[in-house]
């Protein structure tokens, strides 16, 4: 039954042209042994740009513009972004057919904050949104009862489909060579400076200023593969995720493996390969004298779907009218032909733990959180949840891993308990009484590079041409990784015209700024609360915020730019109409009569414009309905006498309706912009304040010992981050106000001094 439905959906999708090949049994095979499949039939593989590299001694040289190490979410986006800016890219990852597009943890994309990141990736013409729209099996807008600024699209993915679509998108990239290999080290050009290995290892801990400065002259020239082949490139992007010295903890300290993850289709070989390679890569990163730290993340056990009693769980359906990630899909939908996902939509379920579960968990004394590296506070293991908030039920979400997959991902109970305890615990949860555990949950500890070692372009400060993106920078989540990939890839493609996104431009800008100023003490995840300007930086206007910027630096195609501009113009026009059409104004009484309940109170029968009604929280749909009703009413009343104003009102309405037909998202955008107008205006004042600080550039060669009045603590913090602007310095955690004052004074003094020197020179020259 389900099969047939799926096939029907696939057929429908084929008609829409989203899929070139229908989904069939092959899909099942895809989730199985992909590796074999790839070697067996070249026709079926999606990665059609997978190529071997030239062997040592062969004539053709292994030279690229950009080398991307790692084929995860960050790696693919980095390769694609660099490619969009016209670079020849090598994407090096072991077993690419297996790793590209792999969702290593939860089978979902988006969410609050994260959803906005996906939109921003799309606004910069990235891949994630496109692949997610094609593979989503449940779309939901979170916080739909709250304002648009804090909403987020989230979608359950079919793992196999996502992988397939992602590989297809990567395969279509021109000038991207996918290389199946392991990278074992970096080729660093020290520019004449001798660096003995012993000194680098002995002074690893001492972040001495002078040594830092001498390091600046390093340049990354490429990578060395495990088989000894050298691949040369102008820039290298490393996106190795959790594989840097990854240690896997299972069973409350019972078992410890050296691996970055357990892959979903248990072929340990690749992981072992990857992990060994990554640890030699880690050595090579350590050799660069970067500060590194250790973090932890966890994953829940996987369950067999057929053994779960869903009747005892609460069903959670997707939205009736799903909202896509990509602006392509969003802009092309209207009331008449709304966007529909190409895949069949399924439900999630939720259940919750109980006292029995808690007892089970507490019975196990080994408490991983105490012994392991810092894990994320927002994604705690069930052990720590129970310990920190006892005597409470904790929600467990049961998420399907795919349409045809028999695996359920139980979100909310990641743990590293022993296998037996895990099963006992699971079976105490309603609905899971007879559950079969396919794979136990585990925790992973891994190395990350302190992101304060990076510039805001994600380039390593000490090494020219070396970029880091993704979980290696201490973040967590597919979206965060992919977003960093876009940034790093775009910058690696052209170091001279960097793509720098400011804090008031985007979530991605906040992400980069937070990472490079504050570092990551726990795995960094995007929250909307991290974004001070979230009322103006929203998911629904990501294209308007970023596409222009991306287009300027060649990251976004002209076609795409046109697309965004059109949407912007439509929404601007709608705002104008809603604000300035006199005929739309009417008394509060009338608005309420026409069904707009959230109309502002207005004394003395003041006429209220639709913009005001929007500002007090009315939905745009209701307003349009009310307006059309109003216009038709007046028409009926005064059929014969057609005044100019009425004509004007009518045309305005017609125009609004036309916009709704052409791109309903533009109309929605207009209403959201109006809704937050007052607040945004206030914020823009703050932004200009911030900009002032941002324009004060701290000299790159500043020696913080020269700045009078800095405490040792401040000096250390500033020296470790080496902020680029005063505003940047102010956001470094723990840097005091007085330190800012000293810094400001120093910079001003230095400016004056420099000016005087310049004047002197001019004088002498005269």
């Amino acid at each position, binding site marked *: 039954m389900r099969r047939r439905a799926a096939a029907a959906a696939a057929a429908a999708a084929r008609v829409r042209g989203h899929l070139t090949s229908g989904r069939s049994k092959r899909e099942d095979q895809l989730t199985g042994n992909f590796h074999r499949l790839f070697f067996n039939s070249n026709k079926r593989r999606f990665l059609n740009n997978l190529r071997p590299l030239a062997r040592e001694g062969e004539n053709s040289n292994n030279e690229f513009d950009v080398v991307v190490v790692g084929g995860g979410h960050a790696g693919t986006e980095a390769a694609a972004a660099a490619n969009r800016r016209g670079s020849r890219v090598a994407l090096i990852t072991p077993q690419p057919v297996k790793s590209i597009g792999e969702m290593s943890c939860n089978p979902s994309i988006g969410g*609050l*904050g994260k959803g906005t990141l996906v939109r921003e990736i799309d606004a910069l013409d990235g891949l994630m949104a496109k692949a997610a729209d094609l593979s989503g099996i449940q779309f939901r807008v*979170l*916080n739909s*009862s*709250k*304002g648009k*600024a*804090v909403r987020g699209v989230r979608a359950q993915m079919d793992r196999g489909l996502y992988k397939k679509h992602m590989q297809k998108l990567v395969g279509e990239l021109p000038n991207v060579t996918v290389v199946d290999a392991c990278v074992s080290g970096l080729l660093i050009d020290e520019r004449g400076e001798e660096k003995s290995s012993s000194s680098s290892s*002995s*002074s690893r801990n*001492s972040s*001495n200023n002078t040594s830092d400065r001498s390091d600046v002259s390093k340049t990354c020239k490429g990578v060395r593969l495990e088989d000894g082949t050298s691949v040369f490139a102008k820039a290298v992007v490393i996106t190795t995720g959790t594989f840097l010295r990854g240690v896997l903890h299972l069973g409350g300290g019972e078992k410890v493996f050296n691996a970055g993850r357990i892959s979903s289709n248990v072929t340990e070989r690749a992981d072992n390969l990857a992990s060994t390679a990554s640890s030699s890569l880690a050595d090579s990163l350590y050799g660069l004298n970067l500060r590194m730290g250790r973090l932890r993340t966890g994953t829940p056990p996987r369950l067999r779907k057929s053994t779960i009693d869903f009747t005892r769980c609460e069903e959670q359906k997707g939205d009736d009218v799903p909202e896509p990630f990509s602006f392509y899909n969003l802009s092309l939908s209207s009331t008449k032909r709304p966007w529909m996902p190409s895949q069949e939509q399924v439900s999630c379920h939720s259940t*919750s733990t109980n006292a029995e579960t808690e007892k089970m968990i507490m019975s196990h004394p080994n408490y991983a959180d105490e012994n392991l590296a810092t894990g994320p*506070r*927002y*994604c*705690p293991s069930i052990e720590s*949840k129970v310990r*920190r*908030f006892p005597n*409470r*039920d*904790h*929600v467990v*979400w049961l998420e399907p891993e795919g349409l045809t997959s028999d695996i359920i991902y139980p*979100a*909310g109970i990641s743990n590293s308990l022993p296998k037996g305890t895990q099963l006992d615990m699971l079976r105490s949860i309603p609905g899971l009484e007879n559950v079969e555990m396919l794979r136990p949950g585990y925790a992973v500890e891994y190395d990350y590079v302190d992101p304060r070692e990076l510039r805001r372009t994600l380039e390593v400060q000490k090494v020219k041409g070396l970029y880091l993106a993704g979980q290696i920078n201490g973040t967590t989540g597919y979206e965060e990784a992919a977003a960093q990939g876009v940034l790093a890839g775009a910058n690696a493609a052209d170091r001279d015209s960097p793509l720098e996104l400011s804090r008031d431009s985007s979530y991605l800008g906040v992400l980069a700024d937070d990472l490079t100023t*504050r570092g990551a003490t726990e795995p960094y995840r995007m*929250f*909307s*609360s*991290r974004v*001070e300007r*979230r*009322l103006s930086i929203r998911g629904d206007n990501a294209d308007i915020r970023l596409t222009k910027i991306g287009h300027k630096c060649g990251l976004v195609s002209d076609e795409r730019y046109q697309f965004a501009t059109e949407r912007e113009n439509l929404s601007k026009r709608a705002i104008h109409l809603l604000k300035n059409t006199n005929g739309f104004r009417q008394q509060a009484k009338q608005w*309420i009569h026409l*069904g707009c*309940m*959230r109309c502002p109170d207005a004394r003395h029968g003041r006429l209220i414009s639709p913009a005001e009604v929007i500002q*007090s*929280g009315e*939905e745009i749909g209701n307003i349009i309905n009310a307006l059309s009703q109003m216009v038709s009413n007046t028409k009926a009343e005064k059929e014969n006498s057609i005044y100019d104003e009425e004509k004007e009102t009518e045309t305005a309405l017609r125009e609004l309706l036309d916009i709704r037909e052409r791109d309903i998202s533009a109309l929605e955008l207009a209403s959201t912009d109006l809704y937050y107008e007052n*607040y945004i205006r*206030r914020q823009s004042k703050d932004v200009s304040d911030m900009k002032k600080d941002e324009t004060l550039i701290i000299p790159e060669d500043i020696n913080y*010992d*020269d*700045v*009078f*009045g800095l*405490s040792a603590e401040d000096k250390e913090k500033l020296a470790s981050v080496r902020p680029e602007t005063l505003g940047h310095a*102010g*956001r470094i*955690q*723990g*840097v*005091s*106000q*007085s330190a800012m004052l*000293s810094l400001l004074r120093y910079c001003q003094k230095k400016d004056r001094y420099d000016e005087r020197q310049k004047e002197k020179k001019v004088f002498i020259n005269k």
Partner: protein
Amino acid sequence: MKMRILRRSAEPCAFDVSSSSSFSFESLFLFLRRSILESTPPRRRHHHHHHHHHHHHHHHHHHHHHHRSLHHLLSSKQQRKTHRVFLNSQKEESAEAKKTAFPSKPRLLTTKTTTRKTASFSTFATKCSSALKVKVEVKEEEEEEEEEEEKEEGSTIYAISTPPGRGGVAVLRISGPKSWEVGERLTLTGLLKEKRGRLEDVDEYISSTRKRRKKRREMARPGVLRRAQFVFETRERELEEMDELELEDDDDEFDKVEGGKGQGRRRENQAPAVARRKEKNTIGVIDEGLIVFFEAPRSFTGEDVCELHMHGSIAVCKKVLEVLATMSAVDEKDDGKNSPTLLSFRNLRPAEPGEFSKRAFLNKKMNLVQAESLADLIESETEAQRALAVSEIELGSADGDVSYRRAPTASSLSRKVDEWTNVLTKALAVCEAVLDFPGEDPKLESSLIHRDVLPAICRVKGEIDAALKDAEARELVRTGVRVCIVGATNAGKSTLLNYFAKRNVAIVSKVPGTTRDVVEVSLELDGRKVVIFDTAGHRFLPIAGKTSSTSEIMEECYDAGDEDESLFDDEYERRVGKLSDDTKDLIDEIEREGIERGKNVAKMADIIIEMIDATNPKRIDFANMNIKRADGIKIISVVNKCDALYVLEEEEEEEEEEEEVYSRYDRSLLRLSLRTGQGLEALTKAVSNAVQECTITASSSSSQASDGATAAIARSRHRAHARAISNSLGACLSELNKETTSDDNVKKTTEDEGSKCSLNHSLGHVRTELVAEDLREALDNCSRVVGRLDVTENVLDVLFSEFCIGK
């Protein structure tokens, strides 16, 4: 042998040791390892080690250098302490051995043969060096200290901290890394005490910084006032060899302020270099007084501080500053190699205004609010100002030294702001949790916002509003209450001002319109600062049916053009006498300007004294001047020249006029006669009461400021932030209340139109993000008051500790 400071060697483990060294490194290694690994009390270890050490003395008399340097490697405080103990014990026990070690002077070994020691030791040393980030070298501990201090950035500043002019005492404050040395240089206290003034000792004192510093740390007890003579040195080239020394034994160190009498002395100093043999240093006495040292960080500025208490003579101050100025001039010829004989200090300069406080602020001795309050305290002229400022500073209860080391306790405003910040952070955390993690914690519901956030916001807003109301009063305490005297010309305004000032500030004459400019006098009235302004009198023109102030009429005249000008001229002539046209114009203009200024001052005043001339009873039209009692301006109306009135009263013909005064205006008008002094007391009391009234909230709360009932917001900067917080919170509340009211609205209307009941459901739309926005802005303003940052991180901390979040 001359002393040389060894530069830090570039090689990480290069040892400058004597080649003849045969020291057992193993014992050292063992000892060090023990002292690192175990944390046994240092004294014991040293004792143990000492024997060891002693034992080896004859082998190699320099070996304790190794100890020192390696100790230095482990230069934690404890280690240093142990070292000192070690040295002291050594001093007692092996004085003899030491003599052989330092035959004449302490010095560094100059045999620079670098020998690598046994492998085990060098690896150990490398470990040490990498662990402690210092390079191993053999160096005298004191020298190292010296070098460290030289490296320390920051100049030494000085200034006379007492007001200029004559006085009993003048205090010179010197702050900065070199302040102690400068102080000693100025007084030669250290020198005199140390060596009782023998020439070779003086020589040694000057040449051996090492010893001096050591001694200084021991003897110049910080915070103890000592008697001293302030001296200056002049260097003269003289051909004769040396003078006879005229030094007497001195006892001029006292632990108490009182004590014996020092004597003037001449001191000669011979420079160690041969070339200088003919150079003679003469010491002259400037003054005699007290000196006190403060050691960083336990000083006002947080740096080393030295204070000289001199006699407050203009000449003494001048001379001392002169001497300091010569000290700060760096002699280019001597590039510091012979620094012991040099009088100059690098980076010594006069302090900029307020620089001591600035350094205190930068060194975290106080926060922004406290720094501001200190400025206020110094500026304070009246009791109320003092009390207000001191309530803010509150440097913490003095429970020993501990209180100095920790950050100064928050002042009452900062404490209150902290409290508000905490409450608002919690409120924002709830909002953010609802926004960012819906449904993840079952406890998280939108209803939380009404339950938790609303009351918190209400409370904080209430407190801020109360504080703001209070703030205005506090501001008045700080700046002084402005009292403005207005009235018709020749009503006696200037006479009243002179009475308040108790001197002839303003010119008084019988001619109407004598006062042209605004005359201002500051004085204290019952502990409150009051600023009294005397203004030019208003002229009243005899226009039928209309009583208006001159200024208005004048304006009208000028505006209307010619027709009324003659009227004005007539009036003027009547009063002032005939004037030439040019002069008249000029005088008109000056008077017009004077009146305009007077009006402006009156608008800004807190209290207005309206003077009414009893013989010419005209009242000021305040409404015309845009002055309203409702704005909080208090108006005291007095009728001057009452003595004349009584005369008039006696003459019954003039009853009419009197009636006019009393019938048209309040009978309770104060009656005053500046000529006889009648009613002055009552007026003073009335003004005083009004002043008290203006500042009542502040006075009441400044006395309770310690228990923090209301926050003291005295500065306009704070007020601006507080007002911004209040506004943001107001917006929050209206948003939250609107929520409830518009929901009610919806309910009402839906009740009316039952058919649209379903709409009610879809309209349950909580605008939490807007509430959060306003809360965030309020928090931003909170952090701006005391100068702290990072709202987001705090909110996330609270959020994760309050709610169970996570998928």
